[in-house]
C-alpha cells in the first residue's frame, strides 16, 4: 500500500483510528480547527457518510439485514464513493484531507466479524495509504466507560450483537470492542500507526497531535491561495481583491 505522497499526489491525507470512545473524533476536530485558522486547505471526511449509500446502510442496520459480508461491502461502497468523489480530487488539488476512520476500521471490524482478511484488504486496495495514521489507544475500560456512560442505548451492529457473543448488549459490546482492539494492534506495525496515548487529557493530546502533524507535513505548502489563473476578463478583479486582502492583513 503506497501513501498519497509516494503516489505523487500533491495533497496529504491524515487519518485517525481507534475504538469508539477513544476520543479520536475530538482530536481530529481540534486539528481541523487549527489548520483552518492557519489558512490551510483542509477537508474533513467521516466514515460512513456518503449521501447516496447512507439510506441503504441505515435501512440494513435498522432492519438488521446485514451479514458480515454485506456489512463489509456496503461500507466499502460508502468509502469508495467518498474516495472517488471527494478524496481523490481534493488530494489532487493539494488539500490536506482529514479522515475520521479509514480503511483500517474495515480491516479491524470486518475481520472481527469473520470476513477473510485477504478478501477485505483486496476490496479496499484501490485506496492509497494515509500519509499519517494516528491510532488513539485508550485502555479498553476507559473507552467503554466513555461510551456506556453517555449513551446507554447501544445499536445492534454497534454492539456486535450480530456476532451472538452475548445476549446482553453491554456485555456483547465489551467483547466486540476488545476483539477489534486486538485486530488494530495486530496491524499497527504493518501500517505504520503512530500510537497516541488516549488516556492522557484532551489538551495534552492535541499539543502532541499538532506537533506530530507539523513535523511530518510541511504545512506552509498547503496554504490557501487562489492557484488557478483567472481568465483575462477577470484578472483585473483579482488584483483589486488581492490588494484589499493585503490591506486587511
Amino acid at each position, binding site marked *: 500500500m503506497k501513501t498519497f505522497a509516494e503516489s505523487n499526489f500533491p495533497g496529504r491525507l491524515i487519518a485517525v483510528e481507534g475504538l469508539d470512545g477513544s476520543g479520536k473524533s475530538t482530536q481530529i476536530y481540534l486539528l481541523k480547527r487549527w489548520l483552518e485558522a492557519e489558512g490551510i486547505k483542509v477537508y474533513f471526511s467521516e466514515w460512513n457518510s456518503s449521501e447516496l*449509500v447512507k439510506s441503504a446502510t441505515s435501512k440494513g442496520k435498522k432492519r438488521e439485514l446485514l451479514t458480515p459480508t454485506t456489512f463489509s461491502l456496503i461500507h466499502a461502497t460508502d468509502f*469508495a464513493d467518498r474516495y472517488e468523489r471527494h478524496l481523490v480530487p481534493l488530494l489532487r488539488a493539494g488539500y490536506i484531507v482529514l479522515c475520521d476512520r479509514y480503511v483500517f476500521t474495515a480491516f479491524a471490524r470486518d475481520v472481527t466479524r469473520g470476513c477473510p482478511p485477504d*478478501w477485505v484488504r483486496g476490496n479496499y486496495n484501490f485506496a492509497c495509504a494515509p500519509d499519517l495514521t494516528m491510532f488513539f489507544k485508550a485502555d479498553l475500560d476507559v473507552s467503554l466507560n466513555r461510551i456506556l456512560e453517555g449513551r446507554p442505548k447501544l445499536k445492534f451492529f454497534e454492539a456486535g450483537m450480530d456476532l451472538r457473543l452475548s445476549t446482553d448488549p453491554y456485555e456483547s459490546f465489551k467483547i466486540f470492542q476488545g476483539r477489534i482492539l486486538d485486530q488494530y494492534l495486530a496491524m499497527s506495525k504493518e501500517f505504520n500507526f503512530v500510537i497516541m496515548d488516549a488516556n492522557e487529557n484532551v489538551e495534552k493530546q492535541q499539543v502532541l497531535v499538532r506537533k506530530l502533524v507539523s513535523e511530518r507535513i510541511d504545512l506552509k505548502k498547503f496554504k490557501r491561495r487562489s492557484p488557478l489563473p483567472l481568465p483575462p476578463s477577470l484578472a483585473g478583479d483579482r488584483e483589486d481583491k488581492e490588494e484589499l486582502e493585503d490591506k486587511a492583513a
Partner: protein
Amino acid sequence: MNAKKSHRFYGHGIPRVKLEELGGKLIVVEGADGSGRSTQIAELVKWLETSGRPTVQVGLKRSTLVSEELEKAQKGNVLSRTTLSLFYATDFADQLENIILPALKAGFIVLSDRYIYTLMARDMVRGMDEKWLKNLYGIAPVPDAVFYLTVEPEELVQRNLSKNATLDYWESGMDLGMSREVFDSFLKYQAAMQSVFKSLQKTYGFDIVDANRSAHAVNKELRKKISSVIDTD
C-alpha cells in the same frame, strides 16, 4: 462424473457457510438484454416445476438491501466506477446470502438471471482491474451450469428496438463515450462485452449457446443440458 459433486466457492467464499450442506443446483443464464434470458428462464421454471422440482429465481438489482438505492444512483449516473461496482457486489451478496444459499440448502434449483460474469465484464470493459474483481467476487459459489446466450449485436439492436423502441443507456455503454450516437455506441459496446465474455469463458468455462435461433430451439438445448446436471444425483 463424480457420484456427488459438492459445491465450492470461487474464492474466499462466505464466512461460516458449510458447503456440504448445499444440495440444490445453481443454474445461471447470462447474455445481453435481448438475448432472450427472461423468456428462457420462464420456460425453464415451467418445465422444472411441472416435473416436480422447486425453483427460485434471482437476478441483478433485486436485493432488499440496496436495489432501490442502486436504481436511483444509476438513473443519475452519479457514482464512480469502483463505487458502482461495490454497490452491485453488495446487491449480489445480499441475494446470495438471503436467497441463493438458503435455497440451495433446501435443495431448490436456483435460476440466476445473470451472475457475477456480467458484473465483471461490465467493469472490465470499463478498464477495471480483473484481479480486484476476482477477489471481490470470490464470495460467489461456482454454479452447476452457466449458459451464455450469444446474439449478434446487429440482431440485439433489432430485438431491443422492437421491444422498447429505444436502446438503454447502460446497455449501450453510453457512459464510456465510445460514440455520441446511441445506435453506434450500442453496437460497439455489445461487441466489446462479447469479447470480454469470451475471455472470461476461458477462465470460467461456461457454455456458449447460440441464441440467434428460435426461443424454442434454444430452450430445447438448455433443457437437455440441465437434465444432465440435475439428474446426476
